């Protein structure tokens, strides 16, 4: 079970949270101008990173707010959490330590 540090409420157990998928996937600005490839990429293709992964979480049984996190998908350890709307913090993948 993950221990997740909500930026608004502090560390809480995973069952209080709902995973919201990969973070920083922007909705297309002009949908009708999009090619089929671009639609497919937007809707279906994800980085599925092995290593650091930026993702959304919602503290659904707490403050109810969405926030972002960077987590290592090999160790499941969180590198950081940060509010939505802010860019992904510049944290380097450290393969030696995490794999």
């Amino acid at each position: 079970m993950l221990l997740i540090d909500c930026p608004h409420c502090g560390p809480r157990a995973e069952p209080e949270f709902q995973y919201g998928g990969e973070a920083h996937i922007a909705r297309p600005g002009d949908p009708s101008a999009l090619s089929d490839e671009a639609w497919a990429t937007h809707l279906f293709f994800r980085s599925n990173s092995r290593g650091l992964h930026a993702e959304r979480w919602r503290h659904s049984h707490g403050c109810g707010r969405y926030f972002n996190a960077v987590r290592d998908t090999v160790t499941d350890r969180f590198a950081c959490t940060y509010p939505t709307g802010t860019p992904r913090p510049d944290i380097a993948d450290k393969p030696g330590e995490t794999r």
Partner: protein
Amino acid sequence: MAGHFSALSLLRQATGGHRRWTAQWRDAAPAADYDVVIVGGGGHGLAAAYYLAKEHGVHRVAVLEKGWIGGGNTGRNTTIIRSNYLWDESAALYDHALKLWEGLSREINYNVMFSPRGVMMLAHTQHDVQVFQRHIHANRQNGVDNEWLTPREAQRFCPPLSIASDSRYPVLGAALQRRGGTARHDAVAWGYARAASERGVDIIQNCAVTGIRRGPDGAVQGVETTRGFIAARKIGVSAAGATSTVMQMAAVRMPLESYPLQALVSEPVKPVMPCVVMSNTVHAYISQSDKGELVIGSGTDQYVSYSQRGGLQAVAHAVEAVCELFPTFSRLRMMRSWAGTVDVTPDRSPIIGTTPVPGLFVNAGWGTGGFKATPGSGHVFAWTIARGTPHPIAAPFSLDRFRTGRLIDEAAAAAVAH
């Protein structure tokens, strides 16, 4: 090398004190080049190698496995086999597999312990009832057996099942596929490995693929591995949860996400469960192994992960559901739990076929329910690799469907797992 298994050979070994058994397949070292390299020594990859050698006359084949064969999801799954999927494309694919299961032990001369004991899927809400009945009708149209049982009939088929009307999610009925059942997961990997090896396929363990080399025309030339470069004219990727990572080596992005999926077993007891019971609504999947352990599957954890471990709450959730459906099992102790990494597609259907890279083929996205498809998947993937064009059954499952929008949405049939 390994010799043919028969009643006589077993008897001979028994009287000889079982001292003359030999290795069942060659643990090969990599050669310099192959016609086809399969990445991933799970059931799907091994089956593909076997059918390449047997049905397409391609003998210079290597299966590269980073750990040991069957050590991935093949050896971690709850072995539920059924083919009652909703759409025509899926019914064709999964029933192709089920028909191969029915003759598999004989085909590969290895007892995979296929046991068609019946798979019963429980309906707990009006929505479930309607969805299952729709499935039953769709399946009948496709010649796939699936029948509706009343709660009482369900209990007669599976006596330990509680159909109490005061439970949180009472059983309102069930869909039963009698041809469904289970098989021995390890035996599937070992049996295909042995049969493929006998036909000249090199099974290479402890050999992780770390890169895919491509020529100036973009076509594949071979793979970089932890045991050196291995040249190949064609590469078939069958790496389950690791597929995105492997395909990335050829700069191909996949519509996949990898999640932990857990299972657990109880202490062994006398036969109590005559069939397989699944409940997608309350997240419980249960059968009894021939050793006597109750084998229980849970739902996936919610986040992307390659850790091969999940949270206890997912397991607890499955166990709570099992205890409600089978009150007598509440006193059993659970012995072990574990997780695999399952590769999930947006429409819960697999991806089998060609890729934008010449010579590179992929068979993935089986997610939480690909064990049941092992023989059929390997069979159509071998055809696809050998001819360079998708097998008719595999054709609808192209990578391109995410661009064209021709999805095969099995979210209801596959639900969350198995």
